[in-house]
């Protein structure tokens, strides 16, 4: 067996070091996913709804649906 000594390994502060690394990682992961969701999903959805209702005419849609014959309470106009 050779008599060269190995360097002494790290004996203390292991949990502290792990916590420091992982708390930073957890903050980044959670904030990152929240930001991605807000700007990837929530904001486009709000914009889509706003645009839809800006130029929507409920009566026009109703007449189109009536002509297609999906209602039971009203019939298409020329029937």
């Amino acid at each position: 067996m050779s008599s060269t000594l190995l360097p002494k390994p790290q004996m203390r502060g292991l949990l502290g070091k792990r916590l420091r690394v992982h708390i930073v990682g957890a903050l980044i992961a959670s904030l990152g996913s929240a930001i991605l969701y807000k700007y990837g999903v929530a904001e486009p959805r709000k914009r889509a709804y706003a645009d839809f209702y800006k130029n929507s005419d409920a009566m026009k849609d109703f007449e189109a649906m009536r002509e297609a014959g999906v209602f039971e309470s009203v019939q298409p106009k020329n029937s």
Partner: protein
Amino acid sequence: MLSLPALRVGTLARRGVLGAASIRAAHGHSGHVATQEDMSVPQYYDKRSSPLPDVPYHKELGAEQKALKEKEKGSWKQLSNEEKVALYRLKFNQTFAEMNRPSSEWKTVLGGIFVFFGFTGLYVWWQRVYVLPPKPHTLTDEWKAQQVKRMLDMRTNPIQGFSAKWDYDKSEWKK
């Protein structure tokens, strides 16, 4: 001691029940029965989770092994490398590398998994042909087309969903 098993065999034979235990009892200890480990004293084990067993591997030592153990009581610098390895092998059966060696078991496991997948596939196919009833009429292409038209007429999910993908002016799906 020998009369008791013989008695038991007689009773069982009379009752017409012959199991493996009664046959073993009838033959007695004819020499090919394995010796039982004495479970009441500490045992040797090779275990990754508890690395230092309670007893050494070789409990009875030969003459030159005893001499080596005497030499071990002195300074270890006088031991050669072969002697150190011999002392290790007296105390332990397998090294950690040997006990943790990988095996090819995963191939058997994976192969067995795929065999059962295949068998299940064949069974499901047979079931589709001979057991299951015909598909409902609502799953024909004709019906599905009528269903899609009705959903578009009703404007289902017109903002981000189904009807949002249909162009009502050109009567086609949006590109």
